[in-house]
């Protein structure tokens, strides 16, 4: 009957325990291991694409950004430094930078042309939220966000998920210029401490 015994308490969720080691997959990718890279793609593509989509909003552009991101991850995988943070944060940093650069370049082009092209509505917005709500990690992040003050939370969300600069965030939240960057930093520090994540102090 041994095999019928329930999983003991304290064993991580199936998703967590079977999750491949991203740092290891990156290292193997840097040696040209395409199978490892495919596993890496399967593990993080929903996060990379989802973040790109949230920032740029347009699904076709988000897909382009995600493709560029994965090419950059593949090319620069040897440059990931484990002691500076998690592989996931490294990949999402690349993703966010690319997505933000994309919207800012597009916006300055739009301003030049005067013609303002109506951006596509965020089609999959609701389904995204639904999918995300189902995940335990998302629940944890939501709970952590509640510990921020409303202004800190709005500032962090506008900057990260909206892709706005801190001066734009200040204007949107009617904060004095120079205040938003402090709210963003304070909010992130609280989020970090509540989530219990850190750079070098993680194994």
């Amino acid at each position: 009957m041994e095999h019928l015994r329930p999983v003991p308490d304290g064993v991580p969720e199936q998703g967590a325990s079977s999750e491949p080691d991203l740092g290891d997959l990156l290292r193997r990718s840097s040696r040209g291991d395409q199978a490892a890279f495919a596993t890496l793609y399967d593990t993080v593509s929903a996060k990379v694409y989802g973040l790109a989509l949230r920032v740029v909003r347009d699904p076709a552009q988000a897909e382009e950004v995600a493709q560029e991101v994965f090419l950059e991850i593949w090319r620069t995988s040897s440059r990931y430094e484990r002691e500076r943070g998690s592989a996931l944060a490294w990949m999402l940093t690349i993703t966010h930078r690319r997505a933000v650069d994309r919207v800012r370049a597009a916006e300055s082009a739009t301003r030049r042309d005067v013609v303002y092209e109506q951006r596509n509505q965020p089609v999959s917005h609701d389904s995204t939220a639904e999918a995300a709500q189902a995940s335990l990690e998302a629940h944890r992040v939501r709970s952590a966000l509640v510990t921020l003050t409303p202004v800190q939370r709005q500032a962090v969300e506008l900057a990260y998920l909206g892709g706005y600069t801190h001066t734009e965030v200040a204007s949107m939240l009617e904060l004095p210029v120079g205040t938003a960057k402090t709210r963003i930093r304070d909010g992130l520090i609280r989020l970090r401490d509540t989530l219990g994540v850190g750079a070098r102090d993680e194994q």
Partner: protein
Amino acid sequence: MSSDIHALSGAYALDALDSDERSEFEKHLADCPICRAEVDSLREAAAGLADLTETTPPPGLRERVLADAAVVRPLPPLVDRNRRRRRWRALLAVAAAVVLIAGGVAWHPWDRPSSPASLSAVGRVQHAPDAQRTTQTLPDGGTVTVYRSASLDKAAVVVKDLAALPDGKVYEMWLQDAKGSMAPAGVVPAGVSSAEMVLDGPAAAAVGAGVTVEPAGGSRTPTSDPVALLAFGSA
């Protein structure tokens, strides 16, 4: 502006700086190990937010990504050690005139202030109305907690369960100023794994603290990569 530049770490971690500010901050990062450590940790927090936006990508993307990988060669690793050294460039630039002052370091291994009525020197910093606290777990185990009170112009540290070091090695504390210079702030006596102490030197203007492993007696400038870097909030 430059005294304020540390405050940009959060906006930088979220790509919320315009391109001028971004390059200015990146110049600063090259010399500021505290800000680098902080940016790394804040990016870790930001990555958590991506849990809220997970979306399955269109099916064609996987094929195109893997097709890209098939025809592109990954870059070779960076083999020089300059990148790691750079983290400590600020430290190595500390003026040679800085002298390690062993006096003034109050060590109370294992004992805690027993009565709150008579607070220890460490307790006074911990309980100052404007005290700020930051904690970090070391890679080999143990924790470092630094308290800083700008009004007292003092910082104190509580270390717990530090990993044992080889003979002839000790943990040394450092305070970093806004210009990125690191000043020696005290040494944990050899063989002690849990202790508390008030750090040497003025702390109000410090932007953070660091811990290194040094030869017994301590060094005047760090000779190894930090095992912990802790940033203070704005005073």
